[in-house]
């Protein structure tokens, strides 16, 4: 039988009983839009969290440390050994030094984090320069040039922005023994010049390049950042570094854990939506069964005219699938609309409270396609029973009854 007729017939039957079809489709719409709304929210949250964890090229980075080991040292020799490993692109280092600022508030000295970093460290760590220039980080005869974190400006009572460039700060440094490799060293009252302001995602601190610290005894590093040539072989590199006795951390592992948590979260949210969809499916089954009971005479007529049982089944399945398609498309569209509106409202509230707008809902194409397939499958499944029942109607029973 002509497939075009089967679907045209399905649509005609739906439009013939408009209110009933509309109510059934609204049921589907609620189920599908709930799934779309909740799961796209989970996708959005997952992306926000993952971005927070793994900004920049973090997925290609391994953090290397010594853990609590007193034997393994993270020094120039360690850097040389790691550099020899295949697939290692670059190694950057950071050494943590304790610092104290006493000039701003004489009664209450300010404890600061002071980091001695290799040249590429800040870039690899996702810091970006907001004001000033990296090029100014040239050691002249004057004070040591440093970059400071935006969050530190208030604490040092320095005006923000471009005005902060060129300001002098005075710090007492205490280089711990883990960094000197022997005894701690105290360096009082050193003068520094702010040459740049960085924004970043970690605690506020002062950054100085390793090249300028000839007179500061830095022999060990607190941490190394190892970048690899590609993401695919990062785990192999990680294993090799661990083979050298170091402790490693790779943000991908955290991301994987986050993904696992969010996958569970998505399943739970999709579960709520599925309950709504199952209720909608039962509503559809009810509609189709009532429609079949009303149309017993029509089915008998079709059989007497010569329509095959197989085609009768297809006619009822087509109605169920058509409702599934309509419910699916309208449901996805409504879910999308609802999430956009919700995102706008939340953004407005966030901006009013001094926050940043964010994308809270994400709709991967495969997910939208999957939801549509799910809707059509629900339609198909609910259509089976009425379709089989219709195909088994004996026209004689109808004729005799009349």
């Amino acid at each position, binding site marked *: 039988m002509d497939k075009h007729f089967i679907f045209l*017939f399905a649509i005609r039957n739906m439009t013939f009983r408009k209110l009933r079809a509309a109510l059934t489709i609204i049921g589907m719409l609620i189920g599908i839009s709930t799934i779309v709304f909740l799961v796209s929210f989970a996708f959005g949250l997952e992306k926000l969290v993952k971005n927070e964890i793994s900004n920049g090229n973090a997925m290609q980075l391994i953090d290397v440390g010594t853990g609590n080991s007193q034997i393994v040292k993270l020094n120039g020799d360690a850097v040389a050994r790691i550099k020899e490993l295949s697939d290692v692109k670059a190694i950057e280092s950071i050494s943590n030094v304790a610092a104290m600022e006493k000039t701003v508030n004489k009664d209450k000295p300010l404890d600061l984090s002071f980091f001695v970093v290799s040249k590429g460290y800040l870039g690899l760590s996702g810091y970006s320069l907001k004001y000033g220039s990296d090029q100014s980080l040239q050691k002249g005869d004057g004070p040591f040039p440093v970059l400071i974190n935006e969050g530190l400006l208030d604490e040092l009572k320095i005006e923000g922005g471009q005005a902060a460039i060129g300001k002098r700060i005075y710090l007492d440094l205490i280089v711990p023994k883990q960094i000197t490799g022997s005894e701690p060293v105290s360096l009082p009252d050193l003068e520094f010049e702010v040459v740049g302001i960085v924004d970043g995602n970690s605690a506020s601190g002062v950054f100085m390049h390793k090249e300028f610290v000839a007179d500061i005894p830095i022999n060990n590093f607190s941490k190394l950042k190892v970048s690899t040539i590609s993401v695919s072989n990062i785990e192999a590199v990680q294993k090799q570094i661990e083979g050298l006795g170091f402790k490693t951390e790779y943000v991908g592992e955290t991301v994987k854990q986050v993904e696992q948590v969010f996958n569970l979260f998505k399943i739970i949210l999709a579960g709520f939506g599925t309950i709504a969809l199952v209720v909608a499916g039962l509503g559809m089954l009810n509609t189709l069964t009532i429609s079949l009971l009303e149309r017993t005479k*029509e089915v*008998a007529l*079709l059989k007497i005219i*010569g329509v095959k049982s197989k085609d009768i089944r297809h006619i009822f399945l087509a109605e169920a699938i058509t409702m599934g398609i309509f419910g699916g498309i309208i449901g996805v569209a409504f879910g999308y609309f609802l999430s956009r509106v919700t995102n706008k409202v939340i953004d407005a509230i966030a901006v009013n409270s001094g926050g940043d707008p964010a994308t809270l809902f994400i709709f991967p194409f495969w997910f939208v396609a999957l939801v549509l397939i799910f809707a059509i499958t629900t339609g198909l499944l609910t259509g089976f029973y009425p379709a089989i029942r219709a195909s088994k109607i004996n026209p004689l029973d109808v004729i005799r009854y009349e």
Partner: protein
Amino acid sequence: MEDKETRKQIELDHVVKVFKSGNTTVRALGGINLKIDQGEFLVLYGPSGCGKSTLLNTLIGIEKPTRGEVWINGTNLYTLKEDDRSEYRASKFGVVYQSQNWIKSLNSKENVALPLVARGVKFREAVDKAEKFMEELKISELLRQTPTQLSGGQQQKLGIARALISNPKIIFADEPTGNLDSKSSNIVIDFLMKINRDMKRTIILITHNPEYWDIGHRKIEMEDGKVIKDVKKNG
């Protein structure tokens, strides 16, 4: 057993139909033997419950006989599977009932086109053919209306158009005038006679109305599931 080639258009060999309802057994057809020629106009009558409609349902392939064989154009009808019988029915038979059933979501010409669609003709093509056919039958005024909006007589005409659209060789009409006034009844009967005369279609008409018992080439009276009178008109 006769050779397939030498059989008449319709043949019933000792057709028996027994219905069981609880402990009661009803013999609706009690061994019918009947041969009908192509182009014949046969009128079947008899009191209610005599087995006329059971006979018709057996002939169109929806009531399997308890015993006996039904041969149509050399095909033993009940050796075919159910879906094959449906296909056979769609191509060979046209059926008109006392009250017409319609697909309510389709208009008149789409309803008339249904037997063609059942045979696998594309819907648009079938509707075009239905439109032309209704014009040929001079009922084009019914084209765009919904069948349930039509009068009883118009519905019967439309039902006959639907029965004829796939150019079947045999038309079965079960009390087609049962719900009509005499004027409309005459129009419907004239319509059937015209089809028999001009299009050489075999017509099997079941009717209670004695006025129409003699309009065909042959009349058969049934009683208690048996043929008690079989009269052929001369000429």
